[in-house]
């Protein structure tokens, strides 16, 4: 009986050790199964900056392509668009404009000005926000694409008398 219990225990310990080893190696393999390549840049914009085409290449089939664009604009207008290798524009684009105003102040009273010129008194609705003190606008785009098309992707930055900066990071995740 003792021998039987002993042999069962040994068998159990052996099984557990083996399975733990194989699970560990699975985890290790899994950790190493993907690699990534990253490209990043910070673009400073000045009042006389011309449109910039920032490109990056997806050279081989990737599991996922992450595009992260962060912009801080102090003055002017900036349009940021992303184009696929076939020239198709992604729906996610952002437009920043420090000059655009739907809300204006007349005698220290805020008004919403509609496109047809109609003025609507905003009363106290935005008095707690001191819009005059807002010195910058932040606009970010984050895009994750599985099985991204191969080729040259372009992030088009179109500034008009703009000052500020745009940071871009692209990461391609591949199978090892």
């Amino acid at each position, binding site marked *: 009986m003792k021998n039987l219990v002993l042999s069962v225990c040994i068998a159990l310990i052996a099984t557990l050790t083996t399975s733990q080893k194989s699970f560990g190696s699975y985890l290790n393999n899994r950790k190493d199964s993907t690699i990534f390549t990253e490209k990043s840049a910070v673009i400073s914009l000045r009042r006389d900056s011309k449109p910039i085409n920032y490109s990056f290449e997806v050279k081989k089939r990737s599991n996922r392509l992450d595009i992260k664009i962060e912009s801080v604009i102090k003055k002017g207008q900036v349009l940021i668009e992303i184009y696929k290798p076939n020239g198709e524009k992604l729906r996610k684009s952002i437009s920043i404009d420090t000059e*655009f105003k*739907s*809300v204006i102040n007349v005698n220290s009273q805020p008004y919403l000005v*509609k496109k047809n010129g109609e003025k609507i008194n905003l009363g106290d*609705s935005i008095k707690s926000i001191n819009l005059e003190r807002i*010195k910058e*606008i932040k606009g970010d785009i984050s895009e994750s694409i599985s099985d991204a098309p191969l080729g040259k992707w372009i992030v088009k930055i179109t500034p008009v008398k703009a000052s500020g900066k745009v940071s871009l990071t692209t990461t391609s995740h591949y199978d090892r």
Partner: protein
Amino acid sequence: MIVSLMKKVFLITCLTFALANCWASSVSPKEGIIYGNIELEDRWAPELYLSYIPTFDDMHLVANGMIVAKADIDSIGNFLFDIGFLPEEHNLFRIHIVKQGDTPNTLTIGGKDENYVFLLAGRRSVIEMNNELSSPPFRKVSFSKSVDNQMFHEVVSMIITADSIAMGSSSSKRKFIEEQMADKLKAVADTSSNPLVALYAAHNSCFRFSQGNDAAFYRSFKEKWSGQDNSYFKAFNMSNTIETNHSGMWYYLFVAVIVGAAGFLFGRKKERKKPESGIATLSVQERKVFELLKTGATNQQIAEECNIGISTVKSHVSRILSKLNLKSRREVLNLN
């Protein structure tokens, strides 16, 4: 004795009525508000900003002068915007939040930090907006008390979902998804009773104006909403003009007048209240819903079959019944 008893009863009835009125007015929300409960992670500042969006092309515009109101979120997540100052008619707005320490003019498109949601509102709107804790924060947002916003939110979600599926698909699959989406959007544009919901669907349907049915669809869409003079329709009409062959147009007008006159004369002789004659007035999507109604399908089944929301199904059903001069869906079953 009887007179004094009647007086007492009358007095009590009046008092009860007055009290009930007071209670109802204190409980039911007044007009011109956006309110609700928002659950946020700690990284977000407990404030909501409401921005006016002048055209559909400006949905992803962030500028200094767009915010028209600010609302604080209290410790249990409640907020309230008083929008009694807004114009009477619906306009497009964006509600957004920002991270602790960020400028109020911050917009993040996509990813777990996407910080905004769109809605339609006017001076008399009563909109309840709630969300569940999620990342991005407005992923699980819902609108109640406003059918227009439920529908609008459904269309926005539909576009985002189709877009993200199409993104990682092969070109042929993507084309298929885009065509499917365009069909659904055209159906919404065709059937929605809210001009801005219809226009938003049309704006995103990517139909090609110069070709066959799409051009016809666009013409009928423009005609249907010809009374709309707001900035949304103006921007849409300016960016989507169709080339018209004028000599051809006169020919079609002439044919239409002849056919119309003949139809009028013929129609007068026919019995008017037959539902069959009303079926022709149903839109494409309504016809599809009508066919499912005839099989006895429930709202849930129709929603699944047509891949639309329950609220959309309900609005289709009520429009179908009204167009066919029927009182209930049971009468639709009897048409078989």
